[in-house]
């Protein structure tokens, strides 16, 4: 495994100026993605996953604005590039697929036209070659009768087919990093598992680097090498996938894992996380998870914890682990 950072996000901050005031839906997010690996960002609705992805793609729109941090791609800070340079990177170096496959394809053009156009834009080939490559890509995503689908309009295809076509477009210029924002959330389990298989073979056989956004721990368990857990705009835990499932540290991560029903085990009563995600306009004074936390200490009410390293490659933002690292714990 090459341990080279392809992507490094450092202290990223995204601000929104709303009628009710300014909020930071992405508040100091840091993580990295090794070349050839899959990093999953996990968290509940509204925690800032999509905004983080859009920041990397350079697609944050008004009223949103990046107000701090760095996004290093192969060592280069994307936030220092001109609009034109960023545009040139999209498709070629970075590509993204979205949750709603239907609405991210252009309804006016055939699927084939949209893939071929992307190839013609970034590669020096003629129409005929572009068509040939498009059909190969459609086949690569497991589409039967790719020639027919090439000439179809998005509305005549199912959600699963559209998502495959989106993947084909994303792959059309052989990007170094593929960002997949909840690529299977809108699909049935059977289709979800087919799409995950495609992503899986891209990751394992083609050694593609993938940033995978999801709120489903099943998808994480199938796909991820590294996991980043987000809560209310912040990263609260980071780990490799095995230690995360074996020993989740943050009470939020523990709660999420326990509240997910599993086919492989039976429990009488699910352990729910009480309460709801805080409103960004009215965040708790101390740890953002404090009002819902079953293990809270007095300090949690008033002060925000920093990221602590609890094991090799495993970091957590929680007061519970300050005691351990500063005190008796012997390594």
């Amino acid at each position: 495994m090459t341990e080279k950072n392809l992507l490094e996000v450092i202290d990223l901050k995204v601000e929104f100026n709303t009628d009710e005031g300014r909020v930071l839906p992405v508040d100091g997010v840091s993580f990295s993605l090794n070349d050839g690996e899959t990093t999953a960002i996990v968290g509940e609705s509204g925690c800032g996953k999509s905004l983080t992805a859009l920041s990397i793609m350079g697609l944050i729109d008004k009223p949103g604005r990046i107000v701090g941090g760095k996004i290093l791609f192969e060592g280069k800070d994307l936030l220092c590039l001109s609009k034109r340079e960023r545009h040139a990177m999209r498709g070629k170096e970075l590509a993204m697929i979205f949750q709603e496959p239907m609405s991210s394809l252009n309804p006016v053009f055939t699927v084939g036209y949209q893939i071929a156009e992307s190839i013609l834009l970034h590669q020096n080939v003629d129409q005929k070659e572009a068509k040939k490559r498009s059909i190969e890509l459609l086949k690569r995503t497991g589409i039967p009768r790719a020639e027919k689908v090439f000439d179809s309009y998005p509305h005549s295809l199912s959600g699963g087919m559209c998502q495959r076509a989106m993947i084909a477009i994303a792959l059309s210029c052989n990007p170094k990093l593929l960002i997949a924002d909840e690529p299977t959330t809108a699909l049935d389990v059977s289709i979800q598992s087919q799409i995950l298989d495609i992503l899986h073979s891209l990751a394992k056989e083609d050694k593609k680097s993938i940033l995978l956004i999801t709120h489903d721990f099943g998808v994480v368990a199938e796909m991820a090498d590294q996991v980043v857990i987000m809560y209310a705009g912040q990263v609260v835990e980071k780990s490799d996938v095995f230690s995360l499932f074996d020993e989740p540290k943050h009470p939020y991560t523990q709660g999420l894992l326990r509240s997910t029903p599993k086919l492989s085990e039976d429990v009488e009563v699910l352990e729910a996380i009480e309460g709801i995600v805080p409103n960004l306009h009215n965040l708790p004074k101390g740890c953002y998870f404090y009002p819902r936390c079953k293990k809270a200490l007095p300090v949690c009410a008033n002060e925000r914890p920093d990221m602590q390293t609890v094991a090799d490659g495993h970091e957590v933002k929680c007061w519970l682990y300050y005691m351990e690292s500063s005190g008796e714990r012997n390594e």
Partner: protein
Amino acid sequence: MNVMNSKNDVLLEVRGLKKYFDVSEGWFKKEHKYLHAVDNVNLKVRQGETFSIVGESGCGKSTLANIIMNLIEPTEGQIIFDSIDLLTLSKDDLRKKRADMQMVFQNPFSSLNPRMRLFDIIAEPLRTHRNLTKAELSDRVFELMNIVGLDRAYARRYPHEFSGGQRQRIGIARALALNPKLIICDEPVSALDVSIQAQILNLLMNLQKQYNLTYIFIAHGLAVVKHISDTVAVMYMGKIVEKASKNSLFSHQYHPYTKGLISSVPISNPRMRNKPQCVQLEGELPNPVNPPPGCRFHTRCSFATDKCKSEEPALRNITAEHCVACHFPI
């Protein structure tokens, strides 16, 4: 006085239920085309149990639920609820009987009137069906809010001021208002985050114990279904293809479709990654207007033979509590 029903009494029975939607195109409808959304469904739901219906999008789950709720008219069939054949009732009697059945919907936002305050949303069914004094009404509404865990300070708020999980609680409070016997939950947790999903599942299970409720639970999340159900029916293109007690279904699947559905569920721990998959569901649902002849699943089934392409398998019992519609059960 009503004698308390035991768990083996059938509360709802559906016989030969069909719903064919007319999807003919063109002005003169020269060629009549029908979509067989629900095609000859038979089922019995026992008092106090949770009967789940699972299957891919478009297999007819909501249509079946809506027919039982009398929200759409069936093309054919009988619905016997609480020993009464609903389709033979007069409009007025039906309206009264319907109060015993309530529904909780998937999208808690679109199912609540955005211009009504929380109090009125929960009070509405009580105002239509019960003759309560003002004081009785507000007592009952606050009682219901308390039961589902909504703070009474929220009574004057509008739906948009609530989170998804809170809106689902409002939907449940409203469904409970008339002390129904049956609640049909159409994907009640699909739109919710896992932490909130667990809160709502726990609430539904507690209410069931407390009020001896019967649930029909529609979902496509199989792990959720395994957690909450007593009986599970698997639908494919309008038909029930397998039906069993929860334990029997999750320990052995006789239908290749059910087996495929269950093996498509993502693993719950990365240490299970190298486990071989038994049956992978290939392909997608065929066009429901022209369903395949014979067994409707044969186009996606790796075990299909000539018989499957021509002869439709009937739903038959393999054990007392497990039945399957497949010529060659696995």
